[in-house]
């Protein structure tokens, strides 16, 4: 298992120096963050409800700019990144949102295919094939044509996960990805993440459920009072 931080072979995938985030004129939700995610690492991000887990993930998937501090992603300084170059970076990041954010007017299958469609780097047949395989894998074969409003909570969550991993991202961020599924499915999904990690994907999973890190033993990033502390994991 790899440790966070720069590994010997090159610079970290993501590096933050002294980063802070505030919403509007409110207090800083995140303060003085120093973080390095080495290529191929796997972290759990923990913290109480409202500690800032989702906020930190939103910085990592470039949907928000930090209020201060330096950030490097995939070797690019984000401070002087022109807006038109950001979409290309985002395509290399997969995200499972805490509230799923599926498009209600598209079927489960179409939702999953969306990142490939937007990246426009694959022909339609190949997309169909990959999507079908993944949909089956997360146990939604029967619901492939259903639209999100007709899916159960756990089914939506699995669609969201499938969409996040479909484009084999270099960085995968998942916010409470097993919060709405039963234990058996939760384990199945964790196996998917472990497999992707072994293929080289860097992974960060935010969760309030401390049994997960305890079980899998990857290192912890713990948020408290807006500050980050690093702990190495338990088992594994």
């Amino acid at each position, binding site marked *: 298992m790899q440790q966070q931080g720069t590994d010997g072979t090159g610079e970290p995938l993501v590096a933050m120096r002294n980063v802070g985030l505030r919403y509007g004129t409110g207090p800083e939700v995140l303060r003085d963050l120093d973080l390095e995610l080495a290529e191929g690492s796997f972290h759990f991000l923990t913290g109480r409800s409202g500690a800032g887990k989702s906020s930190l993930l939103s910085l990592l*998937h*470039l*949907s*928000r*700019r930090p209020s201060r501090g330096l950030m490097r992603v995939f070797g690019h300084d984000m401070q002087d990144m022109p*807006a*038109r170059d*950001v*979409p*290309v*970076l*985002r*395509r290399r990041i997969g*995200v499972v949102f805490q509230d799923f*954010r599926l*498009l*209600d*007017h*598209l079927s489960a*299958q*179409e939702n999953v*295919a*969306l*990142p490939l*469609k*937007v*990246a426009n780097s694959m022909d*339609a047949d190949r*997309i*169909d094939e990959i*999507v079908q395989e993944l949909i089956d894998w997360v146990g939604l074969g029967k619901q492939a044509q259903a639209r999100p409003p007709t899916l159960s909570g756990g089914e939506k969550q699995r669609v969201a996960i499938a*969409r996040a991993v479909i484009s084999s991202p270099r960085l995968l961020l998942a916010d409470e990805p097993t919060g709405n599924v039963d234990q058996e499915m939760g384990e199945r999904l964790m196996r998917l993440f472990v497999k992707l990690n072994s293929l080289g994907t860097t992974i960060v999973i935010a969760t309030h459920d401390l049994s997960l890190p305890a079980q899998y033993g990857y290192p912890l990033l713990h948020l408290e009072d807006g500050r980050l502390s690093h702990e190495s994991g338990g088992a594994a």
Partner: protein
Amino acid sequence: MSVSELSLDRDPSSRFVPWIVAALSLMCAIALGTAFALASMTADWGRAASDQVTLRVATGDTDIPALVDQVARLEAVSRIEHLPREQVARMLQPWLGDVAQVDTALLPLPALIDVRLKPGASTSELRALIADRSEITLDSADAWLAPLQDLAGLARLVAWVLAAVAVGAIMLVTVFATRSALVNQRQTVDLLRLIGAADGYIAKRFQRHGLRLALFGGIAGTVPGLIVIFFATAAARLQGAALLNGLTPSVAGWLAIAALPLIVALVATFTARVTVLKLLRASW
């Protein structure tokens, strides 16, 4: 598997914006048609008035047939007609009563000779011919048209104002419909950006959507408008006074009205693109 990332077709504004655009286009087309038709009618009057002159000869010992012959040979003249005494009497009837039966001695009517000039020809030859004959006066039919011209001009102004209001309203609708679609689709747009869609990719979809709505609305309003104009002016010309003979838009007028949907569609496309890109550029 066809993926239309934005559910713009299901956007509520898609359902009624085209019909508003259609109604506005219909009004605009009718107003423009009225304005153009009135324009060519009054132009017609002007032309008729300046091409047509009347020679009034105080009856004395003038040899009318000789005069007619003389005038007819002028290059500028295309037609000439000596109005019979009965017609002159009829024209005077509202003023003088039934003078046809009145003794010629008691009311010596003037002889009237209608002269139609070739289009654009000047009256100078004619004026030269009669310059030294004081019993002959040359009248052009301008004076009595003035109040009608006033009235038609007023109607034309109203028509232009209505057309302008309609065009303004169409632009307003387009701008607001785009903004409304963007607000309604805010979450979808945000998500598309987060999974890596470029701004141009998103703008293109709104653009196409705006184009379709506006083109549909424009055509659905302009075509009935053209039909209404055609039949209304035709009906007016058939059963109305001779005055209304020129009441139809010119070819350029017809084309201008028919171009309305294209203009509307272009405005919509452009508006959609600018609106969307401006809103998207605000952030990463």
